[in-house]
């Protein structure tokens, strides 16, 4: 018996799929047995981000409709022995192709076999969202430090609470500490003030994410990636370990360091 966690946000493009791929990979790196489920039927991306798109034969809808056995649809990530699997979404259907009850049954089955079942939720609040949360026990809300993203995150938290998924945990993604310092970007405290949920982690903006998602190599596997390190920490926190938040203070470069040396810095 494990945990079924849904990764949601409301707003599109804030990093749900990237987060799902990275914490799934991170947990597998820590020795856990993990399955990732892509519920974004019609607009599937998790397979691409995991680098597994060429190996899809059956998908979530095939399993729900009984066209294949679950084992046939699960794709094993060869980087992790028998610890990391993907259940991809269907691409040629849409979000009405599966029902909430089918999702509940599927999640119960997966939960018996895996330590963590992580569900990548589509953007929005309609049937796709309802399907994704149907079988979940816990939720993660991903947002970026932007007013519109926070607005949508607040809406989604309200819907999660109404659906008996209380205490969602927050991931703030694509933070730019320099902009926060200049007052051009929302800071962490402002966001927690409005959203009033506990913070699971903060992931800084990192160009390496673009490379990693294009190549299908999650950033957690990259020692040099700051975002990867943040996701490694988040994975550890999910297992119950206490990990302090990364220090994201800006490195000011040579001029900044000289300024600090001569006492001209704030």
């Amino acid at each position, binding site marked *: 018996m494990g945990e079924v966690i849904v990764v949601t946000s409301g707003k599109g493009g804030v990093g749900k799929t990237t987060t799902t791929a990275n914490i799934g990979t991170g947990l597998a790196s820590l020795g856990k047995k993990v399955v990732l489920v892509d519920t974004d039927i019609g607009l599937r991306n998790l397979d691409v981000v995991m680098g597994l798109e060429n190996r899809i034969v059956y998908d979530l809808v095939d399993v729900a409709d009984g066209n294949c056995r679950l084992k046939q649809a699960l794709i094993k990530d060869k980087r992790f022995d028998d610890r990391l699997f993907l259940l991809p979404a269907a691409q040629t259907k849409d979000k009405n192709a599966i029902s909430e009850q089918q999702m509940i049954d599927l999640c119960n089955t997966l939960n018996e076999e895996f330590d963590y079942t992580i569900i990548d939720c589509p953007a929005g609040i309609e049937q796709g969202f309802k399907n994704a949360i149907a079988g979940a026990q816990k939720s993660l809300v991903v947002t970026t430090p932007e007013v519109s993203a926070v*607005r949508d995150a*607040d*809406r989604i*938290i*309200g819907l999660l*609470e109404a659906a008996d998924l209380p205490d969602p945990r927050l991931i703030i993604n694509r933070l730019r500490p320099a902009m926060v310092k200049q007052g051009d970007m929302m800071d962490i405290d402002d966001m927690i003030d*409005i959203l009033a949920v506990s913070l699971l982690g903060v992931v800084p903006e990192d160009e390496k994410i673009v490379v990693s998602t294009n190549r299908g190599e999650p950033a957690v596997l990259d020692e040099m990636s700051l975002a990867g390190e943040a996701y490694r920490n988040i994975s550890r926190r999910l297992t119950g370990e206490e990990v302090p938040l990364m220090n994201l203070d800006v490195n000011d470069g040579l001029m900044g360091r000289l300024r600090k040396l001569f006492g001209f810095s704030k």
Partner: protein
Amino acid sequence: MTDKTFASEKEEDGIQRKEQGRPPVDEIQTILIKKTMRSGQSIRYQGNVVVMGDVNPGAEIIAGGNIVVMGFLRGVAHAGASGTEDKIVTAFRLRPTQLRIANHITRAPDEQSEAYPEYPELARIKNGVVVIERYVPGDKPKI
């Protein structure tokens, strides 16, 4: 104390109430919400609405009576929604995206964002316009 303490009281009782040293009572029904209201949540009620929590942007309260928010009011509040102009909106921190009383609609001035006061405020209609004042307990005349 007898059972009569909580019974519904009529106008004649108002005089009795004064004589017994009890304060005047406004008979409109009031509901209490004990949570922060999130974006997309909406309350419509013909009486007063009291919220023990914040009202986040995207949330709305539409009340026939008065609105009291014991927290940050950042959403939309409409008091006196049935048209009565003597209703008020008050909050620990009054920062609504839009505020309405009866048929009047107002919003914060555009340059506002840095300069929000750090004390409770009250909005009401005075001389035909919506005014925002510092909240003062009781019904003392406002300047």
